[in-house]
């Protein structure tokens, strides 16, 4: 039902974090519009391998928009432009025009060093989570699940905050390389739930301290993060984190 398109793809090649890196480009011919962006890259790689060349390396896994592995900066936007929040794996080639030049870059931020080509190292996010992104509860026999009543509104809002997939698009889009949207989404989720309240102050302080230590930038409320978030997290979370953090510090 869709017609095929031909275009030029410019993709970033970089052999390790210290390498300078450069673009390579290639003509792609007759790609069906129903092909997803990553499938198009599969086709590119198949062609490269057939020619005996090394494939273009990028992170990907579930291809359903939920695992958060996707980390491609397509034509100036993290994950590429889609109508509603979506990751690169949910971007389809029909969104492009015949004769387009498509530029693919890695997340560029000091917090995410390049491993190879467009594959970046996002372990910083794990470290921030390890600093406090949890409720300290032992496996075993906590109280009955219904013993904690949570108003539907709070549960729904916590769920929205919890939808973050940790892809790092927020950092990639931010001119300050700030990870506030990521951190605030986790802090918000747990701050909104009664289970998370006892540790709320400790969590906010610990996660922000780790985020700062890892060299992420200061949030200047440009809103670029929420504009590109594939899961539509909002800077309301950042306001909440600020509140939690300031409260915690003033209470010290």
């Amino acid at each position: 039902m869709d017609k095929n398109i031909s275009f030029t793809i410019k993709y970033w090649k970089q052999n390790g974090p210290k390498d300078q890196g450069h673009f390579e480009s290639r003509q792609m011919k007759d790609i069906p519009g129903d092909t997803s962006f990553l499938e198009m890259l599969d086709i590119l790689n198949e062609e490269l391998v057939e020619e005996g060349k090394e494939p273009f390396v990028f992170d990907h896994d579930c291809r359903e928009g939920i695992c958060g592995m996707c980390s491609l900066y397509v034509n100036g936007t993290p994950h590429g432009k889609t109508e509603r929040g979506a990751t690169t794996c949910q971007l389809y080639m029909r969104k492009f025009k015949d004769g387009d030049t498509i530029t693919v870059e890695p997340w560029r931020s000091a917090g995410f060093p390049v491993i190879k080509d467009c594959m970046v190292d996002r372990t910083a996010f794990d470290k921030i989570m390890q600093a406090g992104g949890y409720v300290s509860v032992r496996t075993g026999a906590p109280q009955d699940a219904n013993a904690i009543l949570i108003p539907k509104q709070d549960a729904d809002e916590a769920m929205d905050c919890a939808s973050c997939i940790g892809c790092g698009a927020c950092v990639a889009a931010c001119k300050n390389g700030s990870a506030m949207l990521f951190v605030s989404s986790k802090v918000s989720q747990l701050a909104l739930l009664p289970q998370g309240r006892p540790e709320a102050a400790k969590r906010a302080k610990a996660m922000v301290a780790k985020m700062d230590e890892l060299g992420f930038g200061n949030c200047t409320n440009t809103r670029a993060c929420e504009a590109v978030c594939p899961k539509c997290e909002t800077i309301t979370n950042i306001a909440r984190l600020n509140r939690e953090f300031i409260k915690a510090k003033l209470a010290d």
Partner: protein
Amino acid sequence: MWLCNSSIGRKVVMSVTGIALILFLTFHGCMNVVALISGEAYNMICEFLGANWYAVVATAGLAALTVIHIIYAFWLTLQNRKARGNNRYAVTSKPEKVEWASQNMLVLGIIVVLGMLLHLFNFWYNMMLPELLYGKFDAMMAAQANGVPAPGDGYAWIRFTFSCPVYVVLYIVWLAALWFHLTHGFWSAIQTIGWSGHIWFNRWKTIGNIYVTILVLMFLAVVLGFAFCGSCSSACC
């Protein structure tokens, strides 16, 4: 100290100093408008805020706020550039949601500071400083000798300054930059201290835009008022 060594703390400093400066501008703007109505009244205010000890203290406080705001601005920007890394995107596209001002706060801030220096030269240097240095009488004498308005006559200084078109243009540029800087700065400051949410975010933005626009219009009215009918306004009073 968390106001220095945490990212949110540093932003809180920006936010609080920023809000304080907005309050100062509000006060300053109100005072200026008086000049449009009555030169005498304006000069009375000038007298009250002239070379007195409390004015000096307030000026020092104001200067401190400004300096902290500026130092933090550069500090944050340096840190943010470092966090951004050395590599830049080859292709960028700005999402619609992102305001131009929000991404150019430092540049706007620098324009504001330059404008402020000009303003200080125009008014503070000519009006307040001589009185502080030489006393009221000597300063007045010196002014007379130089053919400029007396230091105590603020109203005359306004007329004198805006009779020069170059200053008018420079002040308009300055005020434009200030408007951009504050439309973002206002809600951003509120957001940073955490007084925002799904509903209040849009409210603060609207309130901020209206407030800042009125504020800048107040200043602009004085500039334009004196630029285009400096003589008629003097005739009025």
